[in-house]
């Protein structure tokens, strides 16, 4: 690290009481549930024993259905007809989380579409970045995905289900999700 760089502030866990500071009404609904074009993105958060993590936080940040990067505010206080692109869901006693949103589109033709994801939890000392890719032919040509083993790649790709997508996140273990560091 060069002398001109400021030393980055270190991460800490969200702890068990993040609910009082991070939960807000409508955090999981980027668009109204059941609205035209909406999908449900849902899944379960698991620990290294495959047990549910009941005190995690999943955040998503995504393009809109046309591949635009949202610039609308209103991510804490939603506004009809506006799309802010950010959502937050706690994991419940089953480790379950869900979002109502739209399918993100690629920012450029031929690129894969994905949700950018950050995971926090009690017991997790630092945020973890990952992605949830929307299934499609573009994934087979993506330089990042193709460099992963098939087992590791699969941890980043959602499964189509009725009404939307299902995607589980494993913090540790045989099915451990691929987590990211950025260049």
């Amino acid at each position, binding site marked *: *690290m060069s002398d001109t*760089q*400021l030393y*980055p*502030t*270190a*991460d*800490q*866990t*969200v*702890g*068990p*009481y*993040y*609910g*009082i*500071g*991070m939960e807000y009404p409508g955090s999981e609904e980027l668009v109204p549930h059941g609205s035209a074009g909406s999908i449900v993105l849902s899944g379960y958060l698991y620990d*290294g*024993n495959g047990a549910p*993590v009941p005190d995690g936080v999943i*955040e998503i*940040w*995504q*393009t809109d259905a046309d591949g635009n*990067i*949202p*610039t609308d*505010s*209103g*991510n*804490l*206080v939603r*506004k009809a007809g506006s799309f*802010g*692109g*950010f959502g937050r869901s706690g994991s419940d006693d089953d480790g379950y989380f869900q979002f109502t949103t739209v399918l*993100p589109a690629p920012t450029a033709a031929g*690129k894969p579409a*994905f949700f950018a994801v*950050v995971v*926090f*939890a*009690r*017991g*997790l*000392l*630092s*945020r973890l*970045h990952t992605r949830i890719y929307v299934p499609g032919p573009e994934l087979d040509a993506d330089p*990042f995905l193709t460099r992963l083993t098939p087992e590791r790649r699969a941890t980043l790709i959602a499964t189509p289900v009725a009404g939307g997508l299902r995607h589980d996140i494993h*913090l*540790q273990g045989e099915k*451990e*999700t691929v*987590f*990211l*560091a*950025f*260049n």
Partner: protein
Amino acid sequence: MDDIPKSAANYPPGHPTQADISAEIADIAANHPTSSDPNWGAHRTLIDYPPYRSSILRHPSANLELVDPETIELASPAFGHRDVHWTEYDLTQMVNGEPQGERIIVTGRVTDADGRAVAGQLLEIWQANAGGRYRQKKERHPAPLDPNFNGVGRVLTGADGSYKFVTIKPGAYPWPNHENAWRPAHIHFSVFGSAFTQRMVTQMYFPGDQLMPLDPIFQSITSARGQKSLISDYDHDVTVPNWALGYRWDIVVNGDSRTWFESLDGPEEDA
């Protein structure tokens, strides 16, 4: 959360003592990190940190995959005055009357590692009250709730990245990690940067707190610089006469994780 026994005799057999945890902390600090920890290179927060027992099954074992951020990750969600009311910076005025405790001001700037301001972005904070009690059902610490304190605040940073909260100094509180475990006083901060790669949640501590050396969450950062990055400075120029003590704490967001991979042989020098 489990009930916290009030005497050692009530702990289950084999429950670690503070001496056990302190020995583990010292061992890791003396250069025996869990070598698989993907954060070890940066010598910042270790995520495979067994003294914090809840971390054992909740950290990835594989190295983080180094990728180029995509355009969506180089942008950040937008928050505006629709989202955050201007009064939410003052945690002492959220209910009907003044909360119990020592009124404080916490102020600083949010920048990236190059010193560029993170402007107009969301900071969310939450904390215990002066007695060390959080306003949440799961909380079992037998300290009183304060009817005039919710312990939650939000602000949007200014054009220069500046922020200010008015609150009360949180109390230390016990937790079940080990026998006689106490968290140092801290305020939780949720920070959005200018890019989603910079998203972070952390905790701000107070200078001189004697519980920091004993706390496995704080000690999961093993370098002096990393630890210092979480400790606010008392600043008499922030203190307002006859009203509140002032603390200054700057936040540096960092989406660039390359340093995690550059020094896998060991810690950075604490220059």
